[in-house]
């Protein structure tokens, strides 16, 4: 470990990302984040099937948010997709994260969900940094650190010939 003498804040500080404790924690975060969404999705399926009518209604009420009229338009015009899509995609995102398969693609879906929850809940009574934002940051952390490569199936999928011939797939895996 060495530091720049001129500015100790910009040193070559070693972060042992490949160290066992770092990989352990990245994988743990991924699985718990996955369970969070899997539980949210699968309980909706058990209760209401694929007719989650609250989804479109929730989006129709997102007037005056930072996302403008987009969610309102989606709630009004894409109810056929959102009602079954919310429980289905929450479940699939959760399963993918727990297994560590197609992790980055799944976590990107989680980012979309959490962006809508964070902006739409408008529960900013305790500040803009609330638990919804923390959930959003968890999904982004999973993407940035390629969490599926640690104790996840993506570590194996990325060894296949298909991925080696199409390295761009690693942006969806990992």
């Amino acid at each position: 470990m060495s530091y720049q003498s001129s500015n100790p804040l910009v040193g070559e500080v070693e972060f042992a990302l490949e160290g066992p404790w770092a990989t352990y924690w990245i994988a743990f975060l991924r699985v718990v984040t996955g369970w969070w969404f899997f539980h949210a999705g699968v309980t909706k399926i058990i209760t209401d099937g694929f007719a989650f009518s609250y989804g479109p209604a929730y989006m129709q009420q997102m007037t005056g948010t930072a996302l403008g009229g987009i969610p309102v338009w989606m709630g009004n015009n894409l109810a056929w997709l959102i009602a079954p899509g919310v429980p289905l995609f929450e479940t699939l995102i959760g399963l993918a994260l727990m297994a560590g398969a197609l992790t980055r693609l799944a976590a990107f879906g989680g980012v979309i969900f959490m962006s809508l929850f964070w902006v739409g809940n408008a529960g900013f009574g305790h500040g803009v940094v609330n638990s919804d934002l923390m959930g959003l940051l968890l999904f982004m952390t999973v993407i940035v650190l390629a969490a599926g490569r640690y104790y996840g199936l993506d570590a194996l999928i990325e060894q296949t010939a298909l991925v080696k011939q199409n390295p761009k797939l690693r942006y969806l895996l990992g």
Partner: protein
Amino acid sequence: MTDIIDKAARALSAGLMLFGIVVLGLVETLAGQPFAPVPMTNEAGDVVATPLIAPEIRTGFVLAGIAVLGLYAAYRLVAPLPDDRGVSHETMAD
């Protein structure tokens, strides 16, 4: 020896936390409503269903997992990793 303790701490802490969160969560979900560890009430406020597993049990497992990590941290304070043994204080190079 160090490696064994490190692996044991990781396995035990993750095992306890994932058991409390995921495994017992799955059992609770499969057991039917309520899916969350809180009693279900009707409009009159009467409890109509109680969770299969008390939240004290599930949170207890998670806290136990965190405690294992805390114990490991305390162990490392008294038995630092070989690389860190010679470092009694950090100094800026200049």
